[in-house]
């Protein structure tokens, strides 16, 4: 454990933890878009900026708190004019990049930005290249997508831009995306994501499609759960539970309940 100072408060943190975790633990808020608790720090969105100053030094500097390990005696300020100004500039750029992303707009509005001072990027989608989708996919062990291209041409795509062979259609990437930029469409028992169609398993009782075949197989293998767990959708499972509960508690009315 080592001690540091966050916004004038003495805080102790374990060696090796990142500043962001220590700041949030101390009860202060720092906005992030690319950070996720279960993933390695990535430092792409540049929103978690804070000002740090080593003891004995006069000048502070701006660092990304998600990827800066805690140091003994470090003086951290999360809301100085320099931090606010730099964050505003970052949001100005993000807003030009992803003008329609609601999370970006919310964060920008918080520092008084409603329109980017840069010309909006017309030809692009709302991807801010935070790589959360890629990292989540890798965490799940599928590695179906990655970032390709360099500079302004960089984008997230499946290998060779073709429908990804390793994808199981779990949809984690689409749900985790901070700018809702990944399209996931479900229609007629099929899920379409990354230009690939997945056949979905239907609930044995109501016929609702609720999980892709590939994802089910992968989950069964990893969790060791029996397949019977996955036979009905959550609605039907709940209905069955209600029936069972009532039948057990009121044996005489079993006939009515069932």
């Amino acid at each position: 454990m080592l001690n540091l100072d966050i916004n004038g408060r003495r805080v102790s943190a374990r060696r090796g933890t990142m500043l962001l975790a220590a700041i949030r633990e101390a009860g202060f808020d720092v906005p992030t878009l690319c950070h996720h608790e279960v993933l390695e720090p990535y430092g792409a969105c540049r929103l978690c900026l804070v000002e740090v100053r080593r003891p004995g030094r006069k000048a502070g500097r701006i660092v990304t708190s998600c990827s800066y390990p805690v140091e003994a005696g470090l003086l951290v300020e999360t809301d100085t004019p320099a931090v606010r100004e730099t964050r505003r500039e970052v949001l100005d750029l993000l807003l030009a990049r992803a003008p329609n992303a609601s999370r970006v707009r919310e964060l920008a509005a918080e520092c008084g930005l409603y329109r980017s001072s840069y010309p909006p990027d017309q030809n692009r989608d709302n991807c801010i290249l935070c790589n959360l989708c890629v990292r989540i996919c890798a965490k799940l062990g599928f590695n179906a997508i990655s970032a390709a291209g360099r500079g302004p041409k960089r984008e997230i795509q499946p290998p060779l831009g073709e429908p990804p062979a390793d994808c199981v259609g779990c949809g984690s990437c689409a749900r985790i995306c901070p700018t809702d930029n990944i399209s996931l469409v479900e229609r007629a028992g099929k899920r379409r994501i990354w230009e690939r169609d997945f056949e979905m398993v239907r609930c044995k009782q109501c016929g609702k499609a609720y999980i892709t075949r590939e994802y089910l197989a992968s989950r069964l293998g990893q969790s060791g759960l029996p397949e019977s767990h996955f036979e009905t959708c959550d609605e039907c499972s709940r209905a069955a539970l209600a029936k069972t509960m009532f039948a057990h508690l009121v044996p005489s009315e079993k006939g009515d309940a069932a």
Partner: protein
Amino acid sequence: MSKLLTVTPTRCIGCRTCEVACAFRHAQEGLPGRSRVQVRIVAKDVFVPVLCLQCDEAACVKACPVFALWRSQETGAIEVRQDRCIRCNACVPACPFGNMSVENPRKAVIKCDVCNGDPACAQFCPTKALEYREY
């Protein structure tokens, strides 16, 4: 053993106060659709409030690839650590009782966590069909 949230279906009158109480406790909008407890109509005038059973060997915990679900030491309930959840939704179909649900705008999974030891549903249930008591 600490306290348990118990359900006595024979006392339930189907008023759905628990659903509203739950939704207000957990979501700012108070939409009953985001409730973690659901009153099911089993037959005519037969109501059963359904919520997480906090299984000893929980399928949701086994299905989670990132250990975002774990049992609270204080209440014994299984909680979702929202900051760890990666929205893979594996726990939703895995629960054999259908008690994991998806909260739509954030796409995060939600489940009953007995409100950290002070369940709103039991507090507001007028007939004590839902009770939080020593077991």
